[in-house]
């Protein structure tokens, strides 16, 4: 495959184009394709000048390696054991085929999506032509081409701005999230670490005490084998007189010495135990505090962020990620970070002591160490793979069970119990196999790793015994040997620790980075520096040449002009996806317009204070949300100060009073995610009551009655009639009958206002509105007949 740099085609293509009479400087845009019409990988090139589109096709090359997105830059590493060589030879231009289409002649150019591949189709002289074929890898750049040509046909100049880079410039890895542009491999982990560390600042006393206890623990751990081996065997049991006088005892009082030693040993263990408990308590206290602070920061930030932030990420995923990230960071700071120093110190000190005791034996121990370490590093991931497999088997079994429980009626009514049991057996068999594989692997690991470890310690014992027997090493006595073996055992802990720490470090710093990203995110919709107040609004709304799109270059609303006089009711009609909801989202400033301006009472909403804007613009939408709490609390959500009488009145106006009173605890009934279930209509009426109590000057009804049955709709409709009095109301509805009472109607189609006027005017126009009206009437009739 020939590499393309900076969106430039390989040299030969330009040479080829020159032969065909196209100069390099005239080329506006280029793209590559990767399939030929026979469905084989083959290089192809698209070249656009202001007059012509060139489609060049090279023949399929047999030894071509095809690299899809994300893999090309890691290729050097990935293909190290590939048998295939990169195709380095010059493409043979003789075999190239080319087709040139004049832009003027081209009526339209578009991409047709297939399964795993796409077609570029052009239409001219009233016929559709299959131009070229490509995989999804090239789709983005070809989509830009078709958009650009569309712009050219409309008389504008095409804009082919470069896309944000999706690869880390340092190591070439692809960013896991294109929008974030953070390379998990190259990010500054130290910086992140110290930033997390700052959260520990309020707990520094705690922290210092903890480090001190850890240090003492490490020291005592170092002393223990010495007491247990050297002193017990070599001094006390061996009845060393020098030792006795050394600690100020009378000669021959070995029993006293033994007693003292036992006491010292017990005391050591006791201190170790106590300090262990103390450490646990301190870390728990500190970590819980830190996690709470972190979550508080995140939650506060999430409140400030604009809707667009949530739109670009899946909210559910976001939440679980934040929580699990916080937990992972905690885990690292509780279980790993504090012990880093301890383990490092223990390891160094142990090795030094060992060398001081017996260099030869120490050498064996130290040589064995990296081998064991390597084994550990190598074998453990294999067990993890197995755990992942069990996890997947478990998950699939759980979803099968869930399927059966929720679908039990269907299973029974079709008499498929037997088949379901068979399915379950299959799934449970897979789980069993996964479990067996895990225990097999674990045993195997124990065998290999434990064996290697035993071998090492046996070698040390053997050497030690040899030294004792031969008497060559004068200091080598039984006690020394026992102490020594104790030290070797003590190296285990740090070794395991260092084997797993790199992964844990990378994971937790990654988590921390993601959390900081949320904390650092800047809301897109910002309040003006000196916000203007809107205390007694009239409710007059003006949209002036408003253009907006969720993605750049893809406007959802184009040049919308609209004037909604104070106190009037406007209905917005249009197909789904026409931009109706977007329009009202802009009025309540969930997003900022890209061009143009929206004014309330003549003041641009960008200059209004958030507080006044949100207080005066309320929305009742199709997705009602009931918060955890009582009915009364939910109704008074936007007006916490409301008294019980006002709440009741709002509920009455919303037609909610009766059903509320039928619930056991009346207005104090707990609803929301943990409480009583409400039907769609009930939820809707509670959110209408909420809006009534908020008493906004501008009311937006976004399909407020779409999800309820006709009867409930009638009740809600009645309730709404109260609500709209004295307010400016914008109502979006799918059922045109809902908009009967609108003062006038606005039809939006493909992001533009296409028709506006009163019902009669629009009907007379015989346009979109007329068609919609007709269709719905027909549908209603049909329904009436069927149901009738």
């Amino acid at each position: 495959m020939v590499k393309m740099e900076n969106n430039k085609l390989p040299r030969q293509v330009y040479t080829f184009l020159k032969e065909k009479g196209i100069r390099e400087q005239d080329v506006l845009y280029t793209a590559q394709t990767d399939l030929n019409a026979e469905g084989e990988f083959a290089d192809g090139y698209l070249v656009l000048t202001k007059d012509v589109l060139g489609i060049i096709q090279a023949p399929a090359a047999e030894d071509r390696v095809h690299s899809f997105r994300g893999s090309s830059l890691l290729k050097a590493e990935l293909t190290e054991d590939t048998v295939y060589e990169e195709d380095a030879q010059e493409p043979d231009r003789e075999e190239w085929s080319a087709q040139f289409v004049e832009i003027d002649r081209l009526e339209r150019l578009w991409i047709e999506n297939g399964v795993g591949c796409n077609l570029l189709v052009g239409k001219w002289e009233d016929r559709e032509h299959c131009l070229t074929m490509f995989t999804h890898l090239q789709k983005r750049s070809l989509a830009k081409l078709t958009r650009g040509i569309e712009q050219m046909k409309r008389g504008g100049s095409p804009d082919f701005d470069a896309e944000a880079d999706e690869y880390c410039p340092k190591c070439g890895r692809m960013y896991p999230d294109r929008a974030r542009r953070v390379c998990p491999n190259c990010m500054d982990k130290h910086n992140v670490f110290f930033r997390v560390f700052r959260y520990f600042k309020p707990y520094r006393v705690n922290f210092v005490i903890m480090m001190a206890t850890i240090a003492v623990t490490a020291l005592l751990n170092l002393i223990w084998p010495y007491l247990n081996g050297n002193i017990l065997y070599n001094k006390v049991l061996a009845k060393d007189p020098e030792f006795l006088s050394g600690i100020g005892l009378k000669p021959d009082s070995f029993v006293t010495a033994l007693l003292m030693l036992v006491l010292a040993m017990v005391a050591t263990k006791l201190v170790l135990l106590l300090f262990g408990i103390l450490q646990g308590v301190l870390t728990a206290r500190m970590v819980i505090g830190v996690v709470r602070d972190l979550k508080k920061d995140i939650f506060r930030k999430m409140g400030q962020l604009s809707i667009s932030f949530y739109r670009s990420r899946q909210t559910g995923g976001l939440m679980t990620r934040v929580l699990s990230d916080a937990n992972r960071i905690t885990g690292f700071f509780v279980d790993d970070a504090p012990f880093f120093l301890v383990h490092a110190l223990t390891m160094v000190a142990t090795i030094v002591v060992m060398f001081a005791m017996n260099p030869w034996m120490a050498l064996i121990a130290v040589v064995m160490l990296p081998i064991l370490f390597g084994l550990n590093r190598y074998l453990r991931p294999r067990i993890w793979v197995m755990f992942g497999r069990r996890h997947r088997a478990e998950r699939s079994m759980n979803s099968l069970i869930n399927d059966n429980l929720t679908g039990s009626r269907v299973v029974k009514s079709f008499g498929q119990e037997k088949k379901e049991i068979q399915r379950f057996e299959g799934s449970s068999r897979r789980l069993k196999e996964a479990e067996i594989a895990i225990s097999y692997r674990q045993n195997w690991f124990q065998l290999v790793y434990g064996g290697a470890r035993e071998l090492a310690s046996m070698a040390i014992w053997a050497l030690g015994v040899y030294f004792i027997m031969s008497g060559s090493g004068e200091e080598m006595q039984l006690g020394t040997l026992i102490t020594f073996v104790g030290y070797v055992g003590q190296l285990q802990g740090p070794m395991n620790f260092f084997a797993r720490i790199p992964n844990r470090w990378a994971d937790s710093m990654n988590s921390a980075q993601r959390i900081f990203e949320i904390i650092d995110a800047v809301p897109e919709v910002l309040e003006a520096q000196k916000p203007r107040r809107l205390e007694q609004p009239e409710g007059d709304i003006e949209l002036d040449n408003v253009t907006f799109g969720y993605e750049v270059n893809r406007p959802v609303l184009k040049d919308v002009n609209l004037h909604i006089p104070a106190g009037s009711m406007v209905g917005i009609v249009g197909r789904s996806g026409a931009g109706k909801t977007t329009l009202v989202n802009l009025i309540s400033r969930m997003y900022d317009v890209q061009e143009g301006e929206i004014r309330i009472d003549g003041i641009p909403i960008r200059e209004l204070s958030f507080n006044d804007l949100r207080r005066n613009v309320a929305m009742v939408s199709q997705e009602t949300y009931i918060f955890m709490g009582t009915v009364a609390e939910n109704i008074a959500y936007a007006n916490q100060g409301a008294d019980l009488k006002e709440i009741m009145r709002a509920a009455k106006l919303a037609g909610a009073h009766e059903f509320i009173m039928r619930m056991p605890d009346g207005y104090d009934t707990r609803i929301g995610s943990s409480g009583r279930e409400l039907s769609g209509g009930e939820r809707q009426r509670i959110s209408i009551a909420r809006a009534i109590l908020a008493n906004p000057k501008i009311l937006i009804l976004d399909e407020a009655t779409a999800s309820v049955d006709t009867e409930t709709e009638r009740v809600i409709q009645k309730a709404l009639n109260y609500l709209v009095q004295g307010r400016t109301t914008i109502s979006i509805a799918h059922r045109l009958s809902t908009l009967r009472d609108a003062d006038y109607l606005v039809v939006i189609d493909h992001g533009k206002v296409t028709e506006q006027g009163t019902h009669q005017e629009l009907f007379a126009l015989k346009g979109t509105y007329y068609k919609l009206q007709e269709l719905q009437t027909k549908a209603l009739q049909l329904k009436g007949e069927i149901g009738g």
Partner: protein
Amino acid sequence: MSGTGVGHGPEGPGGHGPGGPGGRGQGGPKGPGGRGPGAGEFEDFQLSQMEKETEEMLRVRYLNDENAVFERTGTGFLSLRVGEEFYPRVVVVRMFPFSDKDEFISIRTAEERSREIGIVEKMSQVSGETARMLEEQLTLRYFTPVIEKIIKIKDEYGFAYWNVVTDHGACNFTIRMGGNSVIHLSDVRILIMDIDENRFEIPDINRLTPAERKKLDLFL
């Protein structure tokens, strides 16, 4: 006209569909009607149109060498003539791309909200030339290299990088870990979706070597 529209179904898919509850209210006066001016004659037209569309939707038309003539358009596509109808371009789509890719081929109109013109029940039932033409069109729509050899799979930071040999040559591609990048079509057959939704298939994992299967362990 009332009633006919709802009780239809000439090929009679057996009483189901909108005709269900039967005759009540059929003879009654014409529906709520009069909302808005100018209903009248337009109404009849619309309703019969709807009927016709519903009828079309329920009809199954099998295409074969006798009733359908496919022809290459010379611009890379196919045209179709069925009786009186002529379609300058048709799109060929598999109904069961995994279960049986050579049976039940739907022939559809080319517009964005395409409509089914007819069904070719078996590729083997049409003439060789027709089958070839349909095959060509299917090539334009389906592209799924079959993995024959796995050289390496490396997973790192939430992605798995694959290095494989397929029936279309060597490929490097990247999938997202977790999520649904690897789909089990059966116990032995898997479909792999890369980050751009390019597809790769392993028709039978048992045909891979044990070493290759071990590399797949992460996803099985």
